[in-house]
């Protein structure tokens, strides 16, 4: 195992969002560190190209000979890197939006006379009829239950909520 593989996750994390030059097996690779896999020590490097494309190169941990930091990335680079691999349409909601979505769902459930309780450290989870839970952001995909029939019923109910702000 080489020196790179022997590092700890906290040491690898330091390299994230930095532009580095990696020497491996007589080749040099340069790019912004997206991540270092803690299992294999593989370094994932990103280079943004013109035309809305990004070229990704991953150097296997066992082949890494040296890693030199060229420069630090700012927060916009960090955001760019993170959003690269996030699934399309993924968005994070503010506390205000989450509260509104929860209240909208609560009102809709009450209107349809479905019993529910609120659970969790911040009362963020809705427990419907004791068998189904809805987590933030309270969309149809955020329901979990071991009862298929109730699951599909509640999912279509949530889908048909007229008061809920639609994303798409």
């Amino acid at each position, binding site marked *: *195992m080489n020196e790179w593989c022997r590092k*700890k*996750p*906290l040491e*690898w*994390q330091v390299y*994230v969002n930095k532009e580095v030059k990696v020497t*491996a*097996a007589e*080749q040099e*690779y340069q790019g912004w560190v*997206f*991540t*270092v*896999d*803690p*299992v*294999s020590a*593989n370094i*994932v490097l990103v280079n*943004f*190209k013109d035309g*809305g*494309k*990004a*070229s*990704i*190169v*991953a*150097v*296997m941990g*066992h*082949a890494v000979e040296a890693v030199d930091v060229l420069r630090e990335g700012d927060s916009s680079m960090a955001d*760019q890197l993170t*959003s*690269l*691999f*996030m699934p*399309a349409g993924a968005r994070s909601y503010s506390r205000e939006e989450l509260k509104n979505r929860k209240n909208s769902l609560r009102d809709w459930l009450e209107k349809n006379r479905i019993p529910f309780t609120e659970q969790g450290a911040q009362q963020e989870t809705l427990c419907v009829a004791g068998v189904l839970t809805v987590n933030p952001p309270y969309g149809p995909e955020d329901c979990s239950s071991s009862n298929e029939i109730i699951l599909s019923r509640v999912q279509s109910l949530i889908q048909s909520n007229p008061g809920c702000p639609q994303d798409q």
Partner: protein
Amino acid sequence: MKTPVCVLRLPRGPDGTSRGFDPSSARYQALCTPTISASGPVDCVDLRSEQRARSFLRERYLRSLIAMVKRNVKFTMYEKVKVDAVFAGSDIDILNFQVEDLETPLGVQKEALIRCPDVISYSFEIDSSL
């Protein structure tokens, strides 16, 4: 569309339970070693931050693997071997990559397993949705 060649079956490599196999060799370490190396004795707070770092890094790596599925990937391997293939998946220890339509000098292998210890680097392109 290239015609795939028939599968070559190579002899099975040694696993850790075969007789006469050296447990201190790099290959044994790669195939049979426990995946997550634990740190030495650390206190609770350090362990927590180490675990947080570990899961942060691993999640990002897994997402990069997901982004790679069904894309053309170039693998640079030892002995100056460079091959193209369509990435299909990886195992949990990142020891093997499953690929399809692997272009080799012998022809196109419809399905193949690439051993990660043989790989130096791999690269692919994606659209950066900006």
